[in-house]
């Protein structure tokens, strides 16, 4: 077998003029490590694959506005209630700074984006929660925006599609945030009583008060693969009951098996799925849609 140092290096000088080429430099904005498989993934590939790791298919967290961009027809989204902004009602320490930071980090004014859009030509109301805004926590304004959206949908006979990504109620707003569970649930009920469709797509993570209210009260509950969907998280439960939880506990697949979730839809197929459901709801589905 030929060894690594078997061949001598010829003493040839570099031919031609010695021009200094700058050294290679990999920009920080080029790639990242997938948090699931740890492999290097190029941002461009991630974007083209709607934020799903092209290697291990992990559905990574994406910004609320990106999600709407992937689902809604081009230029069809019109934002509503964007003027509503959270206030520190209880004068909770450091909450003002947290709000400011969340706004800077997420470039959004609140933890949810609400509005109307078209999905392959069908009008609907849509809300999408922002994980970068205090992990999509539900405060008064989040509750108010979603409630108003349901009321608008009810008034205009429209379906609602909601993407839930949330750590639960916003602690800094105390009881006021917990009240949003009841308020949104009431709006969802009235919307439903009118025979209108509400589809929730549960994304990673959907937890706490959001799970306990509007995430679980949809007519069709879809979930993204491997999403954590829970009330109290697995670590809290493990520490409380002092027992090891079964593998995959509180994941979307586990909940599908137990009947809490109706279907798991990959992000790349969500637009077509939502279109099919909306189309079916509005009076029929042609073969070519399936």
């Amino acid at each position: 077998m030929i060894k690594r140092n078997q061949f001598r290096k010829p003493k040839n000088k570099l031919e031609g003029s010695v021009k200094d080429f700058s050294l290679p430099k990999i920009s920080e904005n080029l790639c990242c490590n997938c948090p699931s498989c740890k492999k290097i993934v190029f941002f461009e590939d991630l974007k083209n694959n709607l934020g799903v790791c092209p290697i291990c298919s992990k559905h990574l967290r994406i910004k609320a506005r990106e999600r709407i961009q992937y689902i809604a027809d081009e230029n069809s989204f019109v934002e509503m209630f964007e003027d509503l902004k959270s206030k520190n009602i209880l004068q909770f320490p450091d909450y003002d700074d947290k709000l400011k930071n969340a706004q800077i980090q997420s470039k959004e004014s609140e933890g949810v984006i609400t509005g109307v859009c078209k999905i392959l030509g069908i009008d609907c109301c849509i809300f999408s929660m922002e994980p970068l805004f205090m992990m999509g926590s539900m405060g008064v304004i989040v509750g108010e925006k979603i409630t108003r959206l349901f009321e608008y949908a009810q008034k205009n006979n429209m379906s609602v599609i909601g993407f839930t990504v949330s750590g639960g109620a916003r602690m800094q707003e105390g009881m006021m945030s917990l009240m949003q569970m009841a308020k949104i649930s009431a709006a969802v009920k009235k919307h439903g009583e009118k025979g209108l469709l509400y589809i929730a797509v549960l994304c990673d993570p959907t937890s706490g008060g959001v799970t306990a209210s509007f995430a679980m009260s949809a007519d069709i509950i879809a979930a993204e693969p491997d999403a954590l969907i829970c009330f109290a998280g697995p670590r809290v439960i493990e520490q409380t009951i002092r027992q090891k939880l079964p593998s995959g506990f509180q994941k979307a697949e586990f909940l599908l098996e137990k009947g809490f979730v109706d279907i798991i839809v990959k992000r790349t197929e969500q637009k077509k799925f939502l279109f099919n459901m909306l189309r079916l709801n509005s009076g029929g589905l042609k073969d070519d849609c399936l």
Partner: protein
Amino acid sequence: MFHKILIANRGEIAVRIIRACKEMGIATVAVYSLADRDALHASLSDESYCIGGNKVSESYLNMSAILTIAQATGAGAIHPGYGLLSENAKFASLCEKCNIKFIGPSAEVISKMGDKDQARRIMKNADVPVIQGSDGVASNDEAFKIAKKTGFPVLIKARSGGGGKGIRRVDKETDFEKAFLIASNEAQAAFSDNAVYVEKFLHPVKHIEMQIIRDHFGNVVTLGERDCSVQRNNQKQIEESPSIFLDSKTRERMAEDAVKATKAVDYRGVGTIEFLVDKDGKYYFMEMNTRLQVEHPVSEMVTGIDIVKWQIRVAAGIPLAFSQKDVKVFGHAIECRINAENPDKNFMPSAGRVTLLHIPGGPWVRFDTALFQDYFVPPFYDSMIGKLIVHAATREEAIRKMKASLCELVIEGIDYNKDLLMDILSNSEFEDGTYTTDLVARGVR
């Protein structure tokens, strides 16, 4: 000139590039897969690094690992060889973003020429003859209308096609719809793009290509043509230069059209314009290969120009030191591809340890390979393990020399295609030069 080049390839082409770099005084970085840890290219280079597992998707196509090694070693340029990442627009673009010179054309040009339909339209606009067919991507109904107008048989081809995938031949109208769907689905599966177009199926034809080189100053030179009509399943087996099928006028026109094609896309570097030539000598643009070709040695032998060295020089921004009038094609060169496969067992690929190796020698005999005695041919990669090239004053002498050299080639431990190559060389159609792309399929034994 680059101080250090990373070679993102394996086998004989990696060795070929390392040799050119050594002569030019350029330091080399080889990358290798686990299966290639004992490979010649890894030993021959100044530095070598393992970049992943046996599969090419884990190693030689692992862009992030290759770019990481380039940065860690300070390699200012990457030579992709042929195949693998050589025509990957995304990789070329990533190199640009990482301040690494990709030795090949820009990502934009690769992308334009990789879209076969777009390439066809660019050539048509540049007055380069193209095969009759649809102007752009067509739906089933449109494609059928065009096929009827063109006349059957037709080919349905994938826009993003390559390697013979996503191509369907349709002989009659009733088969069209089914073939369209198959081609479209195959294209979707292989290239994630189901767009197809329709072209008249020419038969019988010769596959003749023009080697070109163009620098950053607009100087463009053709290095003669290569007749690559000895093929099996669209894979070339034997190539020769010049082609005795072309008369001097057709050759001149073909060279002019190749130059036009190069200018139409503002091509920089070495590339090949492939043409199909019918029995009347009429030729049509087939595609442009934006990389070094496997069969580049035949052009090197007849012109005396080291294509790999010039490819590196042009990439470094050095102008061509010769013009078209300086390029003289002398004599005749033939190349045989030595594949580790058994023609008697339906070309089953062969892997294993080389227990005895004898490489032919003598004047004007060249054997480009990464084989050495005791080398283990891994089962994971392309079956081509070497290229035997000969050069002589006349075609007849070159054929004689090739036959003699093939007889001298001994590789024990694995199966290879020597006997088939000998049969082709002795075939009367090959001998008189009238052979077409279906020669091997029709049977040469």
